[in-house]
């Protein structure tokens, strides 16, 4: 588009920009509010959530192995229960964090 036809648009928008009187909050205020929000709503812990999923997956795998193989001892049973408890704890924590947001 030739420069000549662009000029009226440019001028119109520049005038509008000059005429737009905006009042913004002070930087300090925005900083305080933002810091409060950041403290109240911490960043999503993506790694933690992936770790929880991994543990849950491993638990299911271990459970399948344990039920399909008869050679497990009582130590094996204890291990699987302990593992399940840890996995459930981590998983529940990551779910509760997601719902809090």
């Amino acid at each position, binding site marked *: 588009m030739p420069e000549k036809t662009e000029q009226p648009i440019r001028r119109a928008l520049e005038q509008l920009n*000059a005429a737009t009187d905006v009042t913004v909050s002070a930087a300090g205020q925005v900083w305080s509010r933002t810091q409060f929000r950041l403290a109240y709503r911490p960043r999503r812990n993506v790694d933690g959530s992936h770790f929880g999923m991994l543990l849950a997956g491993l638990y299911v795998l271990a459970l399948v192995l344990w039920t399909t193989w008869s050679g497990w001892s009582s130590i094996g049973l204890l291990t699987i229960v302990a593992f399940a408890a840890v996995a459930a704890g981590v998983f529940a924590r990551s779910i509760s964090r997601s719902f809090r947001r």
Partner: protein
Amino acid sequence: MDEQAFRAVYDATAKPLSRYIVRVCGKQDVADDLLQECYFRLLRSDRAGMPLADARPYLFRIASNLLHDRWRRGQEISLEDTAEQAVEVHPEKRMDAERMLQGLKPRARELLWLAYVEEMTHREIAAVTGLNVLSIRILLQRARREAQVLLESRGTDHA
């Protein structure tokens, strides 16, 4: 990012960003909320420590995304509120510009504002809007044509 660095970024970008949001979204109260959200998202991101030259387009990109989220949710865009709040410089000409902007679709408003007020290149606009450079060229051309028609029709009304 520490408070001093934040203040430098905020002081350099808050007013142009606010004007952009006000003119594209059309509501001062919504613009205030979106402005706060832009800086919150900047500080929350991994890129909070970026230099000012990079922070500016990044903030415009956040603002653009937030505006698009509003449009997707179907929240009404109007320029009536801003028309009353603007300072009277050249009332008639400002009204023409106001009417022109009001007659355009939000996407066209956004592109024209970034191109002519923020003086961004096609590449920078593409980065802000998430579109490719070729689309920007085509959409900007269309927006210019529409704006020109609106300005000329207003001129005819005056005559």
